[in-house]
């Protein structure tokens, strides 16, 4: 139940502790101290297991069997061959392979005015105002994935948009893994000045049949009246372990819209922490998760309303085939000063496979009285009446299912504002359904 003596450390924990003996040294005293503190936190607490409430359904002690050595740089030809997600969207593309920026594949020319993009390694070496923001967002509790990322990530991208700058062209950061099984760590920082506007896309992909590990963390600092659209696509290889952490600090009257599409990796955990610090912001966090075989994906959200008048919306759709397992844990916290909060969270799951499993845990924690908060969660099979309707019109079973699934996830994908990115996502969902049929 609790107060138990920590059992013997797993091989993965021992391996990770070994990796943590050689921390990157870039970035000055503050960053080095952050890395050391994170390494110490990991050595003290280890990997989470099912007794740790936030990881109840994703027992990393069991799921992460071994620790892999930190990956070495990839060959850019291989990377180019692998990177295929979101390529036709017209976005400015930056490529991160095995946790390091590949300059020859990254488009850093003709940056719009007000936009700064630097590889994190370069920014760390140079120091400066932007780096002063790195590591300032905290989940407020120990998170093993984030601790490992903080300790071991040495590269990624650092982006800042000057106050008032409106960047029309989306930025796409393509995370690619290639080569032999290893662990890659990337850390990104996105800072939007007051009134700035940006569309930011992240994609994750890698080879089939290689049991690699990806640990990515991105911090978003969104100042007053700024607007951020975030689109994420995760299609890692079928044997990969993928851990992502997203941290948001939201100022006042911000518009934030984040969407995650997940269909890859054997084990996925996406943790999202959003702190709503300013009044009257509107945020939405949505997702579509399509799983098959024995895939496991966990989306855990923590939305912290600290001040008045904010609106938060969450819509997550799971489609679970075969014996896959979907996990949704969403927590909306409304602090005492956060009066007039309007929060709505919805998680819906469609179980296609007889052995599929869905675990929902939508939580509300409310300390302010003048609020309107709610959550809903449903799970079940496709409605027989709907299938019958389509089949009565001569549509074969699989096709009828596909149509209904498409409509089901479509509702979540609809929330993406950018047309090209939305079309690309619809296309990814269709590809998944086609592979199924």
């Amino acid at each position: 139940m609790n107060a138990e003596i920590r059992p013997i450390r797993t091989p993965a924990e021992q391996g990770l502790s070994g990796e943590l003996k050689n921390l990157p040294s870039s970035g000055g005293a503050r960053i080095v101290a952050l890395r050391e503190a994170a390494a110490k936190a990991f050595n003290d607490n280890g990997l989470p297991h099912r007794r740790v409430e936030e990881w109840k359904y994703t027992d990393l002690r069991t799921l992460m069997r071994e620790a892999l050595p930190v990956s070495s740089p990839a060959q850019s030809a291989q990377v180019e061959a692998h990177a295929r997600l979101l390529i036709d969207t017209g976005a400015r593309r930056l490529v991160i392979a095995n946790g390091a920026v590949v300059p020859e594949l990254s488009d850093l020319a003709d940056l719009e005015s007000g936009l700064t993009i630097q590889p994190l390694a370069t920014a760390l070496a140079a120091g400066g105002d932007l780096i002063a923001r790195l590591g300032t967002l905290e989940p407020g509790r120990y998170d093993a994935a984030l601790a490992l990322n903080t300790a071991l990530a040495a590269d990624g991208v650092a982006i800042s948009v000057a106050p008032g700058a409106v960047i029309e062209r989306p930025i796409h950061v393509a995370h690619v893994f290639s080569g032999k099984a290893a662990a890659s760590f990337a850390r990104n920082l996105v800072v939007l000045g007051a009134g700035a506007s940006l569309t930011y896309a992240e994609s994750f992909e890698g080879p089939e049949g290689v049991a690699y590990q990806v640990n990515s963390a991105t911090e978003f600092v969104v100042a007053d009246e700024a607007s951020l659209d975030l689109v994420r696509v995760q299609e890692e290889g079928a044997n990969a372990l993928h851990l992502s952490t997203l941290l948001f600090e939201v100022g006042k009257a911000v518009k934030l819209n984040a969407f995650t599409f997940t269909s890859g990796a054997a084990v996925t955990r996406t943790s999202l922490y959003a702190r709503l610090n300013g009044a009257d912001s509107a945020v939405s966090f949505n997702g579509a998760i399509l799983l098959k075989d024995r895939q496991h994906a966990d989306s855990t959200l923590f939305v912290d309303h600290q001040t008045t008048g904010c609106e938060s919306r969450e819509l997550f759709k799971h489609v679970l085939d075969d014996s896959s397992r979907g996990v949704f844990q969403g927590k909306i916290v409304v602090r005492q000063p956060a009066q007039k909060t309007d929060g709505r969270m919805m998680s819906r799951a469609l179980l296609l496979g007889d052995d599929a499993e869905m675990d929902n845990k939508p939580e509300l924690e409310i300390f302010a009285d003048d609020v309107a908060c709610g959550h809903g969660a449903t799970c079940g099979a496709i409605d027989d009446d709907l299938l019958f309707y389509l089949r009565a019109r001569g549509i074969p079973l699989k096709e009828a299912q596909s149509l209904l699934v498409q409509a089901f996830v479509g509702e979540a994908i609809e929330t993406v504002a950018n047309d090209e990115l939305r079309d690309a996502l619809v296309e990814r969902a269709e590809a998944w359904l086609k592979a199924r049929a």
Partner: protein
Amino acid sequence: MPAVQETVEQVRSIDVDQYKYGFFTDIESEKAPKGLDEDTVRFISAKKGEPEWLLEWRLDAFRRWQTMPEPKWARVDYPPIPYQELYYYAAPKQKAGPKSIDEIDPEILATYEKLGIPLRERDALLGIESTGGSKVAVDAVFDSVSVATTFKEELAKAGVIFMPISEAVREHPELVKKYLGSVVPVTDNFFATLNSAVFSDGSFVYIPKGVRCPMELSTYFRINERNTGQFERTLIIADEGSYVSYLEGCTAPMRDENQLHAAVVELVALADAEIKYSTVQNWYPGDSEGKGGIFNFVTKRGDCRGDRSKISWTQVETGSAITWKYPSCILRGDESQGEFYSIAISNGRQQVDSGTKMIHLGKNTSSRIISKGIAAGRSDNTYRGLVSAHRKATNARNFTNCDSLLIGDQCGAHTVPYIESKNASAHFEHEATTSKISEDQLFYCRQRGLDPEEATALIVNGFVKDVLQQLPMEFAVEAQKLISVSLEGSVG
């Protein structure tokens, strides 16, 4: 609506002191020595004249309890409970067992009269004739022992066994032995294990095959002594095709120190049987500063063992400083049904962490959860529930609705549902909302001349109506009054 009118009048008539059951009856009592060790367990067992197997059962529980840590996962915060400072057995002193109601200490009878529980069958009948309601058989538990059970003969005619569990151990050992601990195992959790070791009394009900219990059964629990813990154990068995409705009520005197109440309730419904279990819990909640009050750590679980069986829990939780209570249903039989209707009201500094578990194991099982939480003052009110479908629970259905209402800006309302589905044909729906009483509703009521407190009571009554309707009539009226009393002082 006369009931609403009554609520409004009730609100008006209340003084500053909200808890009207806070009196203490001065009765000589016999206690076990303070503290808990194997000798205490033996003492209780000997007092009850229990057979050897039950003593062993208790001792086994006690040994296991010593190795268990106290659970900390609930959203409640309380000082450590001094388990060795409590009395685990207290019984009102009286000569040999009472043969009839007339031999019971008049002080105890007076206590129950004050509480509005008629123990004398004659009085009960008189009262009932005038209102035209149905009869209710009562088992009254005073501290650690049952003092009176009414209507025994009439129930016996129908074959229904309704008696204190200590008596049942002697008279129906085969039933007790078969079912005791079969729903809530000895090692289930910290508080259930403690209860297994030191339980003193409680009710035992057995409804034979095909019998519809002729009247509602009821137990009234009263903690009277200082520094005592109450550990009652209730066991209800509904044999094939039977039906029973069971009510439970509780009160305690007002004291500055906290008192512990750790009960276990086990329900077993065999094929086609139905058990309806209603609770109005009004233990002393402590004063407005959070001093005193009952720590209520209760394990309640029903096992729908047979096909087409049904268990329904209805609870109105208004009392206790700490409530930690999750009446659950194990839906084992095919087509079995579980229901949970709850109103949990917290005011002052009360902390409530309550909810249910619906565990779907059989095919075509269904469950329904309606939970209404109302938080006022500086209280915290948490709904914590689990709905799960096992791999073989084909076509399991669940509908959950939990709404929370916040009154005042110092309280908290939390919802922590766990929804786990391992079967594709299972259909689970869950919805939860949290809001305050809308300004529009209040304005509407006040325009029609109601003062803010009356208006609030009216709206709250509407908010909890779904659950109140599930209560037996006599209880519904009491519960409605209780709701308005609990919210007294929360507006303005």
